[in-house]
């Protein structure tokens, strides 16, 4: 199997595993606020390692899966849109930024808050906006960023390891 296909197989396995874990385990934990967004951390991690082109592709596929795998309801297409854009910009930011230990965590936090803000905005545009209070939305945004950083600490090294297994030249953090 060529390197190209191996890479996309690995990405596919990561995406499905992330969504299943998110829906079956993380969403049923008695945590306050948002559900830890494993999928977003995965897209951000992939884009940081492999650049914006693969960030867009992985983000798009991951979003599409999220909109299709049960118990998804609502409009299909919102998450692929958001995650593709997130993948692109994270890829750009990682390309020209000099790396430190803290940079990936800041990027993850910003990306998770931005993705949720984007989701709310698109929902308002589509007329499917959730009727929630401002305080609840702020609480969700805050916990979202917090959980994303916590997940990133565990997920990013594992992701980087699995990418380097198929491609030893890729950067590590």
């Amino acid at each position, binding site marked *: 199997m060529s390197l190209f296909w191996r890479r996309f197989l690995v990405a596919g396995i990561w995406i499905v595993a992330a969504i299943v874990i998110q829906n079956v385990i993380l969403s049923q934990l008695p945590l306050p606020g948002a559900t830890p967004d494993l999928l977003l951390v995965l897209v951000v991690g992939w884009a940081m390692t492999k650049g914006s082109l693969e960030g867009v592709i992985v983000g798009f596929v991951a979003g*599409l899966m999220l909109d299709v795998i049960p118990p998804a309801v609502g409009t299909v297409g919102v998450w692929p849109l958001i995650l593709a854009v997130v993948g692109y910009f994270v890829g750009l930011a990682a390309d020209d930024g000099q790396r430190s230990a803290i940079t990936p965590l800041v990027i993850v936090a910003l990306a998770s808050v931005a993705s949720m803000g984007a989701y709310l905005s698109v929902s308002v545009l589509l007329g499917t906006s959730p009727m929630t209070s401002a305080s609840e939305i702020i609480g969700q945004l805050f916990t979202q960023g917090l959980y994303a950083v916590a997940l990133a600490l565990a997920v990013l090294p594992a992701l980087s390891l699995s990418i380097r297994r198929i491609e030893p030249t890729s950067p590590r953090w």
Partner: protein
Amino acid sequence: MRSRRARLALAIAVLVSITFIILSARGSSTTARDTGSSVFGPFERLTSSVTKPIGNFFSSLTRIRSNEKTISDLQQKNAALQFDNRVLDGQSARGRQLQSLLKTAGIGQLTIVPAQVIAVGPSQGFAWSITLDAGSRDGVKTGQCVINGDGLVGRVSSVGRSTSTVLLAIDPSSSIGARAAKSSQIGIATGDGLAGLTFQLLDPMAPLKKGDSLLSFGSKNKQPFLPGIPLGTITDIKGATGSLTRIAIVQPFVDFSGLDVVGIVVAIPDRDPRDSLLPSSPKPAPTVTITISPTSGASSTPPSSARPTPSTPTPKPSKS
């Protein structure tokens, strides 16, 4: 060069996403969802069957103290129920006759597929949905009503072979025709997330009381919602009588954050079950459609004597 390709990929991804959104808004996303449910549902089933026992163990650890309280509560309740049972024995013979006369359907007349919750939608979508471990091979179809022992849970929104997705009644996009049990007034109950439901009367001048139960009004051909399934209790009323914005805040009977085993109604009874599914069995509200006796006044008497309510003489067990 590399960034040009990335920009191109981004443009394509955005265009394709918008196409999906438009197609989905026109209502053609069911096939994709059903396929997703068939292909990926088994993964969720498998993961759930592995992780559920572990999760149950840890959640039972945190509940040891409240379990003791639950046991003593249940013992008290049991004593009260045993007393009620003896009282009921004498009335049950008469009750059976009246029941058959009324031909109202009990909850036993519904054909229910029991199912377990295996996945819950993440809260950042602000959508309230769950995955169940029953699918088309168990006879589940899109649009069927989902209930549990407490009342209405939601409706099936997509079905895979072995799993199905349920849109919960508290989802903001869920609207259910409902009727206040005592005043018989009809309106629309809309989901409001964990805050419960909001109930808006069709007639702004109609009377509405706190503490009144809300029952589903029933959909056309009883799909997706059966009539007479309990929704919740009115806890607060906002707005003055006559104002167009008068809404009632409804506390659902179902504990949506702790859903575990639910029932999917796969076959509906031949006859209207009316209000006989209300949990604490208060007087079923006399509806104009019950015309079993020649005199008009008698239509409300059989239900009240057929199902003795907690308000009819039920001395506390301490007195006996």
